[in-house]
């Protein structure tokens, strides 16, 4: 069952894409548990490792119950803080990573199971050994792997699994990744504006039918419906966002004194496009996708698509209650499928 693993050792110097084309048998690709085109090349050790400034240990939990506002429980998958076993402990979303620009970071992924996963640090651009793209670099299966990266730009990122990505990221295998400038928390980027407090708007949609699939669903072929995402739940930062729950959740919503500068870190974590409306507030967008804009822009709403991030500072100068609504919009029809709501109250 380790045939694919052995084959991988024959790679040419540059040839992370140059596997021989034979596949691992009938279905091609081989792999364990009937998966195809998954490459658990754990015998590869990241060759570039140096002594890190920060280490994040991540394990896997594929049984995280999430209770929706309607009482239904949907199974989520995620990363645990700390490596090791299958004993649970995972959260949705996965625990955040927060590092300082210029630090050498190790992310140690420990997959203590016969199912494959990776960590890709989305928006972070490391050596390909540390890029964590399953199927074409290294899936981690029954072993651990260390990713090394050194963030050069402050801003909002996220990390997620990149094995059978269409399914695993939808199952909730992601967490926030914040890069602070050398000045530390409270400054958006080096020499840039300051803020007093932060909100996290990580907006996502869930198709609960997908949440009954196996980790390798579809990899060998067959129509398991992964071309068609028909969400029935709309999530903001791990909370059912359609009703009032998120409007009373810390770090998503809040009540602030007039004069407070609130930084909202908005991540489009779903697969359908979104439109976020700031409910009457005007924000200043300073950073998108971890890069400072040449000129900050004022915005009362933004549109975004999968994987985009926007860092928006609100100077709260007028008392009132502001409801921030994010529409999740069908990628073909343009129909609004659902809306999440969060709240900023200025007193």
């Amino acid at each position: 069952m380790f045939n694919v693993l052995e084959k991988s050792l024959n790679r040419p110097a540059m040839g992370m894409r140059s596997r021989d084309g034979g596949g691992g048998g009938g279905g091609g690709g081989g792999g364990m548990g009937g998966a195809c085109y998954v490459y658990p090349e754990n015998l590869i050790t990241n060759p570039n490792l140096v002594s890190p400034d920060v280490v994040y240990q991540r394990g896997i939990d594929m049984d995280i119950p999430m209770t929706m506002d309607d009482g239904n429980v949907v199974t989520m998958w995620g990363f645990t803080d700390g490596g090791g076993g299958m004993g649970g402990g995972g959260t949705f979303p996965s625990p955040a990573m927060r590092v300082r620009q210029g630090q050498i970071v190790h992310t140690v992924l420990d997959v203590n199971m016969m199912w494959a996963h990776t960590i890709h640090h989305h928006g972070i651009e490391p050596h390909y050994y540390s890029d964590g793209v399953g199927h074409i670099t290294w899936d981690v299966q029954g072993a651990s792997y260390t990713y090394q990266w050194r963030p050069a730009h402050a801003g909002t990122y996220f990390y997620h699994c990149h094995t059978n990505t269409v399914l695993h990221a939808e199952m909730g295998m992601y967490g926030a990744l914040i890069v602070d400038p050398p000045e530390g928390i409270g400054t958006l980027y080096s020499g840039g504006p300051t803020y007093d407090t932060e909100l996290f708007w990580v907006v996502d949609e869930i198709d609960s039918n997908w949440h009954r699939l196996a980790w390798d669903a579809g990899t060998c072929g067959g129509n398991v419906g992964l071309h068609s995402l028909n969400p029935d739940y709309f999530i903001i930062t791990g909370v059912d966002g359609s009703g009032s729950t998120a409007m009373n959740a810390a770090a998503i919503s809040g009540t602030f004194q007039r004069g407070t500068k609130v930084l909202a870190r908005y991540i489009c974590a779903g697969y359908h496009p979104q439109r976020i409306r700031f409910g009457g507030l005007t924000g200043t967008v300073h950073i998108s996708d971890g890069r400072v804009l040449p000129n900050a822009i004022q915005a009362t709403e933004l549109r975004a698509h999968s994987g985009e991030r926007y860092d928006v500072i609100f100077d709260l100068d007028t008392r009132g209650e502001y409801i921030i609504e994010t529409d999740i919009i069908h990628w073909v029809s343009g129909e609004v499928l659902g809306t999440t709501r969060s709240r900023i109250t200025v007193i």
Partner: protein
Amino acid sequence: MKRRDFLKVGSAGIASALVGTTGLISWSRRAHAATISKTFYITDGTITMPDGADVYFRGYSSSANGLDVPGEQLVVQEGDTVRITLVNTLNTTHNFVIDGVVDSGAIGGGQSKTVEFVAGNAGTYMYHDDRNGEYNRLLGMHGGMAVMPAGSSDELYSGSPTFVQQYFWIFHDIDPDWHNALRNGSTPSSQYEPMYFTLNGLFARPPGAPGAMDPEVDAMVDPRSALHGHVGDRTLVRILNAGKAAQSVHTHGNHMEWLTENGQIRPDVWKKDCLYLDGNMGALDVIYPFEVPPDSWPPATKGAYPMHLHSEMSQTAGGGLYMFGALTDIYFE
């Protein structure tokens, strides 16, 4: 030999003449405008999807017995006279349109027509058939045209950030039920639900899959799609969406410098790792700078990174087969 046959055969070399020898759009500036002539044959056929399904397509093809989806890339410069001869080998009526530039009018079954226009503003255009609304475009009748600024070989428009090489990424999505209905001459009645997703007409293949690493089959290595460069080889990519689904274009390795959106020059150049590409002929121009991946340690100057759509349904084929969708590779050499 039609591409469908080639795809069924699935071996390298046979169809090399169909796709051309280079993926790069090679372009040398000219001091004077020229007349550029091109003949497209409107043809049809079936193309085999990664799950084995045969789906009907129509295309603007470079030979009467070929089937090119998308059509061959056109590269001209401002002021050129562009003369397109269209030979309709089908018995259905078609046209050739570049919005705001040229409209051939109806070309009946079995008829031919030549249209001529002067290339106007520098930029990226889609040519397509809008005779029957969007249907013929969805069936495959689309392609990209680049208009270079007069006398310039390294700008998107006069004064734009510069590049040393350029590519097209033309995305498409396919609902086989619609293609079947249109083949039979009927109007699609089902809700559009794309099941297959292509880049420059090809599907990606994960390593080990049939056709993987074959440049005629695998979008990961198709020389029209896969970017190759050394550090510093700033690369313009002209991105068009012939399909209906809005996509998020995501690059690994480097952020993209975002120059235009739907033909409009952006007021500032933002650096983005994901860009919103509208459905139904959305367009973006970006420069992939081939800088040392900024978060690599030790700094990496060589390696390969994917470009994939982050609207991840587009990474599947036939409802599964992750990584048989619209993605390619970016090689730092």
